[in-house]
Each structure stands twice: as structure tokens, then as C-alpha cells.
């Protein structure tokens, strides 16, 4: 059913060289290690940074997936796990990008402040298909809570992923599919 278009395969964590090759509209399959975090975990991470304290996860080169998975069925590493809406992370993402975060995965457009940090420090924002939670869960081979277990679905998890399907939505050059893609298909009335 899924269209087979040309896909770039990349390995996470990301290097600067890889980030630079990614352009708006690229179909990408991510394999490797990524971390999960939503609003509540972001707030804690940024509070720690502001207090000058150590973080529970590394940020250099890493990719954070904005997701709060459903509970895993017996025998599965994780439950359905589609992206959550990214604009809620606008107040936090620039701090993490400054610390070396190279990629974010979510749904919907990220703010100007985030786009600027991405340009300045070289980072990329990937869109995953919202609601495609059962499909995406198939590309997650292993999941383990590494921080903030008390947050339940919002705890930080370390994921091992294989060919996780995403699209480059905002790149390190300021490219933005939410503006360019929509302009392309907009019909003036």
C-alpha cells in the first residue's frame, strides 16, 4: 500500500554531515538509537539546563521523538507510537539544539524560534505520520525507560529503531515543507 519512492537511509545519532545532506521533502528511513520526550519531560530537561545540572540523557548528535506511546501488548517492545504535535515543544527545543541535539521527529510545523536554532546549530526536523501509530511501532525494535518513569507515557525512553519512516519537514537551511508544500498545492479562490 505504501508508495515506494526514493528513500534516504540514515543512522541515528546524526553527524553534521548527514544533517547537511537532508532537504525538505526527502523521504528518510531512520535506523539506530533515538530518545522520546514530550512536554513534561522537556520542561524537566530545560529546568536542569537552566540550573546548570547534568541531564539524564546525552544530547550531542541525538534525535528526540515527540511521542507518548500506548501500553505495549504482551510480547511487543512498545505499544502504538505515533508522533505528537510539535509546536508544544517550541519553548524548549532551542535550548536542546544549542546543547547539540541534531534532530526532532513530530507532527505539524515547528516555530520560527526553533527554525532559527536549527539554522544556527545545524539540526533537522522530521515529520512522521500522525495517527500511524501501529505502523510506526513496527519499526521500533526495542524500548527502555531511561528517565522520569513517574511520567508514565511521557517518560523518556531510549528506542532502537529500524527503517523508521519520516519526511524532512524543516531543514538546516530554513526550508519548510509546511510553507513550500502548501504553497505548491494551494488554489487561489
Amino acid at each position, binding site marked *: *500500500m*505504501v*508508495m515506494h*519512492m526514493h528513500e534516504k537511509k540514515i543512522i541515528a545519532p546524526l553527524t553534521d554531515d548527514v544533517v547537511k545532506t537532508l532537504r525538505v*521533502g526527502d*523521504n528518510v528511513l531512520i535506523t539506530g538509537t533515538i530518545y522520546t520526550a514530550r512536554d*513534561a519531560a522537556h520542561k524537566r530537561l530545560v529546568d536542569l539546563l537552566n540550573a546548570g545540572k547534568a541531564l539524564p540523557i546525552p544530547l550531542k548528535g541525538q534525535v528526540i521523538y515527540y*511521542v*507518548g*506511546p*500506548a*501500553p*505495549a*501488548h504482551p510480547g511487543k517492545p512498545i*505499544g*502504538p*507510537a*505515533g508522533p*505528537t*504535535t510539535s*509546536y508544544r515543544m517550541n519553548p524548549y527545543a532551542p535550548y536542546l539544539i544549542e546543547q547539540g541535539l541534531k534532530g526532532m521527529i513530530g*507532527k*505539524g*510545523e515547528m516555530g520560527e524560534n526553533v527554525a532559527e536554532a536549527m539554522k544556527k546549530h545545524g539540526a533537522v526536523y522530521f*515529520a512522521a*505520520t*500522525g*495517527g*500511524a*501509530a*501501529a*505502523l*510506526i*511501532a*513496527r519499526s521500533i525494535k526495542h524500548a527502555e525507560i531511561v528517565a522520569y518513569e513517574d511520567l*508514565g*507515557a511521557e517518560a523518556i525512553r531510549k528506542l532502537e529503531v529500524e527503517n523508521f*519512516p519520516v*519526511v524532512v*519537514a524543516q531543514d538546516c537551511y530554513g526550508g519548510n*515543507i*509546511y510553507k*513550500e*508544500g*502548501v*504553497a*505548491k*498545492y*494551494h*488554489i*487561489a*479562490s
Partner: protein
Amino acid sequence: MREFDVKKITEAVKRLSMETNYFLGEDMVKALKASLDKEESPVGKSVLGQIIENQEIARTEQMAICQDTGFTVVFIDLGQDVHLTGGDLTEAVNEGVRQGYQEGYLRKSIVKDPLHRVNTGDNTPAVIHLRIVPGEKVHLTVAPKGGGSENMSEVQMLKPADGPEGVKNFVIDRVRRSGGNPCPPIVVGVGIGGTYETAALIAKRALLRELGQFNPDPYYAEMEKELLRAINRLGIGPMGLGGRVTALGVFIETYPCHIASLPIAVNIQCHAARHKSVVI
């Protein structure tokens, strides 16, 4: 009069909480498949393909379509000749949610207080909309509602002078400003009239309609078609990545209103449009 144990309500809510989250309605599946032909953007087509494949996986593996298994909204039309026994109706609904979300591996997404934000741990309480109707039956609908699309919804008090143009502009603009956030392709519930809260409630009830059904009033049926065409010209496309397929349906519901008012509400529904009814 008919006696009726509230345990039946608990069982129905439990079962429907799971079924709505695992099985996308046939009308939605059909509309999503048909939209593949209309979509011109390659990225949009691939997103639609993923959405269709996803609901097939969820259906066969009996797992949630989306990890956001929603706020459990429950509509109950209670026949006035029904006498409920065996406990409290609200508690019976909440018990159904509790059991359904626990046994169904569904996510618990409700915090007890909007500012203190501690999770209740069992997805309760439900949001319950109760109507007393003639007869001795109970009509019950479970409609889990995700946060992403709910957050893009809005109520506005227009002036009567704003008229149909004001109404249409508000709906189109609300969808435009939502972009990819509510997981397009969306279904748009529109409530026009009533008081402030009625507009929102009828917009939500509108979302319970099946795709392909129109407002019985030809004037509003025409407006639904016109709004759908206008929304699909916006270019937002699947997941907001650009394309032709932004919405699969627009449902308008109306209610009489005050001589001074023109309330309008837009309740946006993502492609994980989950609702199912039973008559007990």
C-alpha cells in the same frame, strides 16, 4: 417502565472504548482509499498510504490505531421510561472506561487537574453528554477524542450581520490556521447557533455523522459541499505537508439562536475519527 442494571452501561462503554480505538469506521476507510486517487502530491499519497496500512494493522492485531486513545466522550440518550438500578450512572460509565483502557492496552491521557497535571491513571473521568428522550431504550455512543485535533477547535461569537459569509470565512480560516497539527485529512464539525456552549456541543455531535451523509436542509447541505471544496483548495494536504486532500467531510449542525447572536463552533476531527453506537 423498564428496569435496567447500570452494569450493562459499564459493559457497553468498556467494549466500545476498545472497538472504537482498534477499528476505524468503514466510511472513513472508504473515504481514505478514495482520496488516494485525488491526491496529487507524492508525499501526500505516501502519507495516505501509511494511514490506510496503519488502520489495517490495528484491525488485524487489535491494537490502537493511534497512541492517543483520547478523552472518552460518551453520549447517552436515556429513555425516560428506563429505571436504572444497581448503582450510579456516571460511575458506571467511568468504570467502563477504566476497564476498557486497562484491558485494551489503551493510553491513559487524562490529568486530574488542568494546572496541577497529575495523571488519573485510568483515563477517567469520561466526558458525558446526557439527554432524556422518550421511550424505554438507552442509546449510547463512545467517541474517544484525541488532543491534537481538539486543540485546533474554536468557538466564536459572530455578529448576526456577519451572516453566511462570516460563518464560512471562520470555518475556512480555522482549518487554514490549523495546518498539519490536527492530522489531516480531517473531518470538520461545525455548530451554528444556540448559546456559547450549544454551538460547541452541536459541532461535536456533528462529528458522529457518517461520511457521505449531508445536513437534511438543502441550504446547509450545499454549504457543507462548498466548504469542503474551499478547504481542499487550501493546499494543506495529508499531515500538512502540501496536497489536495485536507478534509474528507464537513458536517454542519444548527440550533435556533438569540436575536443578538450568531455563535459558531468548529470542532476538528483527525483521520482517526473514532465513534461507535449501541442501543441497549
